[in-house]
């Protein structure tokens, strides 16, 4: 119980520190959003309109950094995330809610699939050491995971989407689709998701396989596993309920962590596949100096990662009592 309270307290302090950093990072960047907008639309805004734009975005008025900081904290706690500048005048929360399900859906699901399949393959290949599975799969996927992600993505598009025409070239769904819960829309979404998901899974699965395999091998060599075998327990039971449970520890903590990084990790996927998610929105927000959107996305990432850390610590403590002991 005390452990839980300590971790929670920890989480809150880290959250506050990260929020403060997230407030200052955008403001350290040179220029301001109005100039960024002028630059983007240099064909269509009369150059002397800079002050009009600054007025529209509320940057002209001079507010002390301290009062802006407290206003930011207050607004954030109330859920008021402001109006996006690059998507002016749509509010930030609207833009985020539109994109969130796509990032979570694609990258989140792909991570889960990669983890489950990779861990299972790792466990099995460790159990059947020296077998064909162990000789082929782990090294192959290790090598594939060393490929740069975006390069694999571009090749996949060129081969499967353009040359073979099996899958759509880009997007989360086709242009003419109507966003509603019908089988045709769901099917459309799945067709668009297969290629990016496939690319994510094959480039990340190597890591899961290796982690699980190596830990599994170590665990299998331990005395209690020999004891279980001697006692006559079925191999299945030993694999999944005794050895597997203990071997999974590092994988689980790693998995919890990687869930936290789903959003920032999505940047390259979304860039290459034109996927309507948050990662690319973050990159654009930074390049356009869209303070409100940037801060909201940083907040989201911060909360996600810290929660992931918290969960991973809890999971570690539950599964490995040794980490709970204080000296």
């Amino acid at each position: 119980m005390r452990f839980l309270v300590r971790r929670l307290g920890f989480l809150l302090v880290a959250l506050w520190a990260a929020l403060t950093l997230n407030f200052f990072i955008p403001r350290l960047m040179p220029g301001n959003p109005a100039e960024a907008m002028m630059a983007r639309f240099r064909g269509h805004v009369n150059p002397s309109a800079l002050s009009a734009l600054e007025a529209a975005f509320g940057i002209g008025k001079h507010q002390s950094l301290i009062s802006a900081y407290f206003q930011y904290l207050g607004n954030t706690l109330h859920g008021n995330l402001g109006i996006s500048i690059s998507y002016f005048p749509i509010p930030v929360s609207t833009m985020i809610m539109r994109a969130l399900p796509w990032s979570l859906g694609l990258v989140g699901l792909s991570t889960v699939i990669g983890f489950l399949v990779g861990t299972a393959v790792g466990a099995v290949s460790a159990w059947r050491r020296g077998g064909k599975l162990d000789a082929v799969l782990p090294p192959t996927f290790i090598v594939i995971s060393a490929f740069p992600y975006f390069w694999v993505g571009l090749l996949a598009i060129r081969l499967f989407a353009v040359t073979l025409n099996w899958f759509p070239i880009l997007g989360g769904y086709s242009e003419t689709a109507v966003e509603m819960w019908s089988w045709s829309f769901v099917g459309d979404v799945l067709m668009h998701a297969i290629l990016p998901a496939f690319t994510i899974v094959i480039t990340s699965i190597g890591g899961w396989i290796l982690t699980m395999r190596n830990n599994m091998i170590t665990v299998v060599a331990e005395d209690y596993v020999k004891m279980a075998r001697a006692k006559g327990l079925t191999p299945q039971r030993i694999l999944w309920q005794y050895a597997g449970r203990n071997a999974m520890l590092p994988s689980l903590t790693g998995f919890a962590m990687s869930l936290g990084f789903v959003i920032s990790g999505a940047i390259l996927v979304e860039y290459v596949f034109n996927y309507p998610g948050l990662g690319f929105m973050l990159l654009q927000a930074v390049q356009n100096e869209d303070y409100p959107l940037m801060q909201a996305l940083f907040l989201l990432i911060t909360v996600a990662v810290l929660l992931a850390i918290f969960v991973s610590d809890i999971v570690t403590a539950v599964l490995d009592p040794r980490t709970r002991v204080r000296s």
Partner: protein
Amino acid sequence: MRNKFKGGLVATAFVLVASTGVMAIPAVVSSSSAGAATQVPLNLANEQGELWSCAFNPFVPTSSPYSVGLTYETLDFVDSLQSGKVTPWLASAYAWSNNNQTLTFTIRPGVKWSDGKPFSAADVAYTFNLLKKFPALDVNAVWSVLKSVAQKGSNQVVFNFSTPAVPYFYYVAGQVPIVPEHLWSKIKNPVTDAISNPVGTGGYIMSHCTPQNIQWTANANYWQKGKAVVQTVNMPAFLSNNTCNEYLATGQSQWGSQFIPDIKSYYVDKKAGNTYWFPPVANVSLFPNLKVAPLNNVAVREAISYAINRQDVSTKGEFGYEPPASQDGIVTPTFSSWTSSAAASKIGTGYDPAKAESVLKAAGYTKGSNGFFEKDGKEIKLSIITNGGYSDWVADIQIMAQELNKVGIDATPETPAANTFYADVYAGKYQLAYNAESGGPTPFYEMRQWLYSKNSAPIGTAASSNWERYDSPAVDTLLNSYDVTTSAATQKSIVSQLENVMVTQYPVIPILEEVDWFQYNSKEFSGYPTKTNPYAQPGLYNEPDWGYVLDNLKPLS
């Protein structure tokens, strides 16, 4: 155990793939059947690097390109490719009076808003006074020169200028979209209203918007009979250039505004009728910081101008798509009639490395042992910055740096991220900056952006244009004299004098001519602007031009 486990895995995978395939079939069927019912839709290829926000407020630069011209119209159409030729649009006629300080428009009768209500002069007066009430909406800064706008009689609107500003005709008549009073007077804050269902007088109504695609349908009650014939228009959102170009190459999009490397093999050869035309519209120039040594020495600037082989920069950096610019600042062939022969003959071809070296020597510079020019122990060492996000501009400055190095000027290219670059350019924190102004329907607009001292600002404060900090009271007076006249002859003479300034003082060094990116298939739709009929700018990011072009397109299949 092993077989059961593996079997389970394989079975799951099979079910997933199979169900996906089954579910996908209805999607394929439904989308194709929707298209086959009526005319083939026109799909556009315009990469903006972002998803659509589905806001259509015509006064906000982030959303106006998607409603101005197609849904909202302006008083007149001003053609930037024909030196500002005026075609009546919502106004049937206009007249200057009172020493060019009053402009009266006669408003066309018989026009309806897309919700059925009648359009009138009252809407025009309302629109302009709305801009006065909410300055954040006045992105063209028309109220910096207007004194009053009022309806006169049943069908006229009178604009009184506080100071003669004839060039502002382009902004007042050609850039301000007219909005319906009966709807906008009910909006509490038009600055932050997204206007998700725009109602206008134009040929196209926004019918469906998702972050990935905007769809417009032709206005069945459009006031121009025989126009807005194409029924459905789609503009998908693209996050990167490559995916957008793939759409053009595979024929999924028929009208694009893309930079396509090696366009012949990538696009033209792929399908019969694939064509492109890149009309030059403004200059991409080196802006020397005139407040910084040694760029404050005209000899150094002249040497830089002669040292650069503009044709080379064009061929290698831009695949030859952007023609070399001229030091006199006139974009040809678009504005060829404005070129002053005196200025042109002074410059010659514009490339003369021997002359560059002799100019520097005459100014007291000597070549050091390392091959670089120096004076009083100080070497000419310059950095060229440009927008790191534009790979073609990056290539351009790398080529230019090499050519300057060959002549004996030590130049280094730097490519900061976009926002850093613009912040530095606006604040004057650079030595040489490679950038472009927006220009306008005649060469005057760009030159005024370059040379008018009031556009500028002290080093450290953001200037919206005139980033090189050029300051000449004589030139200011010359520029102001253009504002009071409507005579084409006077205008041309003033521009000739400005060209002379360009070739004697080298305040800005134009390198290449910026073009509108434009590719289309001529066998699927007709009516596009062409070299022989440049009736509007063809880029999909020009408002109101692209809406104007859309009104004129006709399907051929």
